[in-house]
């Protein structure tokens, strides 16, 4: 079993901070299919539609029959470890810092006994060959999929294995900023992070004269510090970044403004502006203030800067006219988060986008169920950090939209236009 993670000792202030490096980043167009599935936590390989052969590595044509009908298909990952070795040397700057590094050869199970063999990174609890393992596709610090062999069954402290942690953004012993603690969702996120072992949780509070009883309850958590933060005010964001920016390992941006209504429901832009000011410009201000220090600290020991979570909405994918201006602000935020992903990704900091369906709050009062409880979304956020994925779609509504969006975004748009969703 992996040694349980200990709280890291305090940073030695006279030792130079290690700069972030990335494992090999470049992938061909076909290999990106593996990464695309891994961003949502799935392990998919191409399977030949003509002969059924499972392909690895990803390719253009079947390695058995040359068919070009290769479909990305979820895999169980069950396989046999047939050889292992330990690397003690690498010219790659990322792996040089992490030697020794254990890898192995795994033959995937397949009906025709022609499962491909895969060179995989090994979780520390994977024994010597031969043994049974589970393969999974994980995102490494470059944001690309790599294949990890895990022990067949869960082992104690599994998440604490150092080689495995290179693919996770676990909040355990990390310092987290939750940008808005005044909403039920923000408060649920704080509680979920505390339960996951976060070391320190800064909780943003805008307009402190407007009371939030739930926020006061958070003061009972010893690891919580409530701080002034108004994402609509660059001064406020800059001031907090100056105070704590060099310590924040994870940002969870829960700040959002949600009002119902589309274009014709109002005759001015005031509400839409405020939605944009929080949902889009708020993210921009936070990125400008906190992004730089997080990039610098992306290899800063065990509790490095590691992830940035954005609370978006499933309405970011396609406009839901009854909440039309809100949808537009979330679509803008989605686009900006992709920019943030590129910029932070260059240092190995992961940007996680969360696309919940309607949340059971006062602004969705008139929407019929199913609506998501705040704690469900909070759990999904913490799970995404632990799994190290990029995109999560919590709840049935989000899943249904996503499926339709993937099948045909135009059909989803048409269905929404007809009120059929």
């Amino acid at each position, binding site marked *: 079993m992996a040694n349980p993670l200990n709280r890291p000792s305090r940073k030695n202030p006279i030792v130079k901070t290690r700069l972030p490096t990335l494992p090999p980043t470049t992938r061909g167009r076909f290999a990106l299919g593996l990464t695309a599935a891994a961003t949502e936590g799935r392990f998919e390989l191409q399977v030949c539609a003509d002969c059924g052969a499972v392909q690895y590595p990803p390719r253009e044509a079947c390695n058995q029959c040359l068919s070009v009908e290769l479909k990305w298909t979820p895999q169980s990952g069950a396989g046999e470890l047939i050889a292992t070795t330990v690397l003690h040397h690498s010219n790659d700057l990322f792996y040089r810092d992490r030697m020794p590094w254990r890898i192995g050869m795994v033959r995937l199970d397949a009906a025709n006994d022609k499962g491909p063999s895969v060179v995989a990174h090994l979780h520390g609890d994977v024994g010597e060959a031969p043994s049974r393992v589970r393969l999974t596709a994980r995102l490494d610090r470059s944001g690309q999929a790599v294949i990890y062999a895990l022990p067949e069954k869960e082992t104690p402290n599994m998440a604490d294995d150092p080689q495995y942690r290179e693919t996770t953004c676990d909040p355990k012993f990390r310092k987290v900023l939750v940008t808005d603690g005044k909403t039920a969702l923000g408060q649920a996120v704080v509680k979920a992070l505390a339960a996951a072992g976060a070391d320190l949780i800064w909780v943003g509070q805008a307009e402190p004269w407007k009371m939030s009883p739930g926020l006061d309850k958070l003061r009972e958590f010893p690891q919580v510090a409530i701080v002034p933060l108004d994402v609509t005010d660059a001064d406020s964001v800059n001031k907090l970044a100056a105070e704590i920016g060099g310590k924040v390992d994870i940002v969870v941006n829960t700040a959002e403004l949600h009002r119902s209504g589309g274009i014709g429901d109002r005759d001015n832009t*005031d509400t839409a502006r405020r939605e944009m000011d929080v949902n889009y410009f708020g993210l921009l201000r936070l990125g400008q203030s906190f992004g730089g220090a997080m990039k610098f600290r992306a290899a800063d020991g065990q509790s490095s800067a590691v992830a940035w979570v954005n609370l978006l909405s499933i309405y970011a994918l396609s406009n839901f006219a009854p909440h039309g201006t809100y949808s537009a602000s979330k679509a803008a935020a989605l686009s900006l988060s992709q920019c943030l992903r590129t910029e932070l990704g260059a240092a190995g900091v992961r940007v996680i986008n969360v696309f919940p369906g309607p949340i059971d709050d006062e602004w969705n009062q008139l929407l019929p169920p199913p609506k998501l409880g705040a704690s469900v979304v909070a759990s999904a956020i913490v799970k995404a950090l632990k799994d190290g994925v990029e995109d999560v779609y919590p709840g049935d509504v989000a899943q249904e939209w996503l499926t339709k969006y993937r099948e045909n975004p135009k059909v989803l748009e048409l269905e929404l236009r007809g009120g059929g969703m």
Partner: protein
Amino acid sequence: MSALLNTLATALSGGNVRIVDLTQTLSPDFPAIVLPPEMGQSQPFRQEAISKYDDRGPGWYWNNFTLGEHTGTHFDAPIHWVSGRDLPNNAVDTMPAAHFMAPACVLDCTKESAENPDFLLTAEWIKAWEAKHGQIPKGAWVLMRTGWSKHLTDRNDAVAYQNMDATGQHTPGPDTEAVLFLVKERDVIGFGTETIGTDAGQGFHLKPPYPCHYYMHGAGKYGLQCLTNLDQLPTTGAMIVAAPLKLRQGSGSPLRVFALVEEA
């Protein structure tokens, strides 16, 4: 220069007439008025540099700013309230320039407001004040001094300044009879406060709701809010300069408001 203005100029330069700034600094964290979230919201003050001797403009510094008309220390015109909507010259751009200056009476309710944040200034209270200090002259500003501005200036405590609980805001202000007395019996130019509104925090529950807004603006009178340094004014005799920005059909405006005070 006329003899009168010449005397004023000499008094200003010689220090016999002092200028007291009654304005709070506009900053992003200055508390904005609170309305139910489903209603239209006043934008708080926001400020962003266009350039600051940098690559955006190497030799100069300047900002863009945004804010609602009723942000920070500000002026209320009669058009602000439904009761004053049809009056002539009721907006900040059309109000008579002659109204930019007027004498002030300062009603010191500091003690009462410290004891009771929901203190309501009554007509009786004003009459008792007049018995001591003389009748409030026609066309004067009536400034309700409560010490409330010190929550911000001395303690930087916006929470205490807003003083909200589950039943809303708790700040002092005038009651309906007091407002009617000032409007009908004294024909003042307007009413000024240190708090975020000319009405009490619980003014919504008076009859009519927000009587100071309702009757003052309904009679073509003005309001001044978020004033500070009222404790530096004499009880009577100060001259107020309150000229709002000339915003087209503006309902109010942030402004630099100050007083001329003759040294004894």
